[in-house]
């Protein structure tokens, strides 16, 4: 019995243990604290996640080689760690932004957020189909609730319900894919499955069908074409910090399993899925960007832009190389920071003025120069301009595409970045150029949120100028899959 659970196994799930403890603490203090002190729940969540990030960095570092722990259910590797850090960072930022608003005064909010993060963490390190599915649902179900968290607002409830229906549908298809895999091979471990595919235990046509079904489930999570329809409605209806979380951490979680499954289970089919993902990538970014052009609501605009970014990330993946995956991971990390900053800034300004219409952001630079500058940084980074992180991230995925021989896809990506630049500039035009409405007062915002956003903007610039250490991590993570 004593050898059943050893130290490495504990270390491997240290962040998850910490999350469970944190959930308990939030529950406890949610009961004790009353009134104004409830805001402290946000601090507690953010600080707890911060501590967990540091602890994981210090103690949970994996061995050089890929380890399987907990009855071969989980990986303990760099790949999982990097993604877990990304998710926890995303959740911490979301908590800080959310705690200023009514919904951020409830312990349920943070518990759901943390539970979802727990699920994502397990997604990133899952080594077994069963684990993968459980983690997938653990991450998704709290998000359905969070999307509908503003239960007095029709749009939020609608968003939650819609998300649930779309999610259940795609998850059912994915599960059907899993059952095909299990039915033909009798195995659930990802690495064993790869062997089965190679040895031909598994009829080729069934392999392809299972691949497609699994892809559908993941495409939903990353909001890739043609499973992107849910994103704009839900981002618009949900509370803005939650939209930010959905568009970053949740999307990153989708990518973490997509990458793992494609490269571990289906490496022998690389030729096929490379093309499929390439086509999905091209369509995703084109559709996202073109529809974003016509949006009048900033949350919807960011929703379509986040669809387009999924397309850019897919360029790196469809290059099907360690370099490509490293670039994609780098992109995901940068994108998380950038998009959370953008959503955060939009949340602050929009909640204050009560409107998310692009027209109501007119003259923001006169009403709040600081927040306008933060928006400038995040939107230009999304557009892929140096010295912000988005530039180097985009160059890396394009470079991976060129090296992977997907020159046509890179050309599509380059054209898309131009469309992207166009609509980001239009938003900035409203912020910087147009005058505010007569008598519009100066805006002030809660200090912790603004400080966080300023710090994030600085982070975007740091990533965009000193990219070597971060890229090193991303590449390390990518090497675990090969």
């Amino acid at each position, binding site marked *: 019995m004593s050898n059943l659970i050893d130290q490495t196994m504990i270390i491997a799930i240290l962040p998850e243990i910490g999350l469970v403890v944190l959930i308990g603490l939030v529950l406890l203090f949610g009961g004790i604290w009353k009134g104004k002190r409830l805001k402290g729940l946000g601090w507690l969540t953010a600080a707890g996640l911060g501590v967990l990030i540091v602890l994981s960095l210090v103690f949970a570092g994996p061995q050089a080689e890929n380890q399987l722990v907990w009855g071969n259910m989980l990986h303990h590797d760099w790949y999982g760690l990097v993604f877990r850090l990304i998710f926890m960072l995303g959740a911490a930022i979301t908590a800080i932004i959310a705690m200023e608003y009514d919904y951020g005064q409830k312990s349920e909010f943070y518990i759901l957020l943390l539970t979802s993060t727990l699920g994502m963490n397990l997604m990133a390190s899952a080594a077994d189909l069963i684990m993968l599915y459980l983690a997938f649902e653990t991450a998704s179900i709290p998000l359905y609730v969070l999307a509908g968290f503003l239960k007095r607002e029709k749009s939020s409830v609608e968003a939650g319900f819609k998300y649930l229906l779309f999610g259940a549908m795609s998850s059912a298809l994915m599960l059907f894919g899993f059952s095909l895999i299990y039915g033909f091979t009798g195995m659930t471990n990802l690495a064993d499955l790869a062997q089965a595919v190679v040895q031909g235990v598994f009829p080729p046509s069934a392999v392809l069908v299972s691949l497609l079904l699994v892809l559908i489930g993941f495409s939903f999570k990353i909001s890739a074409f043609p499973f992107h329809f849910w994103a704009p409605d839900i981002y618009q209806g949900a509370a803005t910090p939650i939209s930010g979380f959905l568009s970053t951490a949740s999307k990153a979680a989708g990518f973490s399993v997509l990458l793992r499954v494609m490269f571990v289970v289906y490496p022998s089919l690389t030729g096929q899925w490379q093309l499929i993902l390439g086509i999905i990538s091209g369509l995703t970014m084109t559709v996202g960007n073109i529809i974003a052009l016509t949006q009048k609501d900033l949350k919807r605009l960011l929703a379509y832009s986040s669809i387009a970014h999924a397309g850019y990330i897919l360029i790196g993946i469809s290059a099907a190389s360690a370099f490509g995956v490293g670039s994609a991971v780098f992109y995901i990390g940068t994108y998380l920071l950038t998009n959370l900053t953008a959503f955060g800034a939009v949340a602050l300004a929009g909640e204050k003025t009560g409107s998310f219409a692009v027209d109501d952001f007119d003259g923001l630079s006169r009403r709040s120069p600081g927040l306008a*500058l933060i928006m400038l940084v995040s939107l230009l980074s999304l557009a892929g301009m140096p010295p912000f992180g988005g530039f180097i991230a985009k160059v890396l995925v394009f470079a991976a595409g060129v090296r992977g021989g997907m020159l046509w896809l890179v050309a599509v990506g380059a054209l898309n970045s131009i469309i992207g630049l166009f609509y980001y*500039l239009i938003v*900035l035009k409203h912020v910087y150029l147009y005058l505010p409405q007569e008598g519009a007062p100066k805006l002030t915002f809660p200090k912790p949120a603004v400080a966080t956003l300023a710090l994030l903007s600085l982070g975007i610039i740091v990533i965009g100028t000193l990219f070597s250490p971060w*890229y090193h991590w991303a590449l390390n993570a990518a090497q675990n899959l090969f």
Partner: protein
Amino acid sequence: MQFPIISVIVLTPVVTGLILFLLPGERKNLIRYTALTAAVIDLLLSFWVYLSYDITAGGYQFLEKFTWLPQLGISYSVGVDGMNAPLVLLTGVVMFTGVLISWGIDDRPREFFGFLFILATGVFGVFVSLDVFMLFFFYEIAVFPMYLLISIWGWKKTREYAAMKLTLYLFIGSMVSLVGALAMYFVSGMGSFDMFVLQDANFSVAFQRVWFPFVFMGFAVLGGIWPFHNWSPDGHVAAPTAVSMFHAGVLMKLGAFAALRVGIMLLPEGAKFWMPYVILLALVNVVYGAFIAMRQNDFKYVIGFSSVSHMGLVMMGFATLNADGLTGAGVQMFSHGIMTALFFAVVGMIYDRAHTRQIDELGGFAKKMPFVAVAFIVGGLVSMGMPGFSGFVAEFPIFMGVWQTQPWIAVVASISIVITASYIIRIVTSVFFGKMPESYADHIGDVALRDKIALGLLSALLILIGILPYPTRMVPLVTSGVENILRLLGGV
């Protein structure tokens, strides 16, 4: 370790920009003086680099190199040779004069100077970079502040349209070049973006011929090459004065210079194959640009199209691929930069007073602002290529170079000199002489001392280089840079 002078030049503006953003926006004079201090530092340092570059030793000097992303062979690598030393000086001069001229900007000067300085860092960075990735990095930094500068502080009528047009054109160009550069990186197999490494990559002739047009034209868009020149006059006209100066004076050189560095120097075989066609495009620039300039009624559009015409001469000089043409093009980049900055400064001063730029509604400014009139005439003479002014030092070798390759092009292009003379003389007579309209004659005064300092510096440079092309080091410097290019082209 020696003093990292180039990095200081490159980073001073952006650091100042960041400091400006931290200052309180209401203290406008504090902001202006901070900006001026940074501009003076950069001006002095760029003069220092220009004067202390060792011509007899040649090659790249003031080298600095740090690894940036070692996994991909990206490094921060800067240095100066005979080709870019004048351009660094040009940027320093335009930055300094630009700050002086923009003293009167009253709407959010903090943001204005902040963005202007970020732009300046981008420009310096491109001129000195010896790494292709780094060049792109700074190139993009130079593009985006332009959008804000034009759309916020520009001319109300066209600014939104012009700013968007300009940004999209330049971004498309840079994307095309970027894909080309990535192809070069992977095909070379050297795993490095360093220009010295890529110079020796021995790309196959077929590869060079396929990719040269992408890389060259992508950058040449910013150089204003026909038929992709359309953004430039609109952008010049819509931009506020200092930005027009930067834009026409420096930014267009950025495109031409990057096309030279990445296109011609790294893909020389491609250049040899495509240059006979590029020279035709440049010819259209030169002649067509001049004709359009002649037909304009808006003072600023005249200057805008004259830039298109003169940048055509730069491209034409490049396209000859011989010593005379390249030397002329190198000098022309500097001379035209200073001259155009001067022109736009003058246009700005006149517009601020008369609130119109229609040539037939202007007149008699020489009486009110004699200094400005003299400065403009100096610029005009440079523009016409008169001996004794820097324009002659630049344009004469270009025509000699073109004559050596295709004499008929030189003949056709020379028409532009006549047309240039016609539009310059037209402006001088109807704007500076003649009778000043009654409507604003009584409330127009002379320009401020700081404006005179700016104009004086610009005209002095034009005259000095014109009279003393060798003692001012301009021609020897560029010649030494050209030797390096010719060596890469296979020792013509």
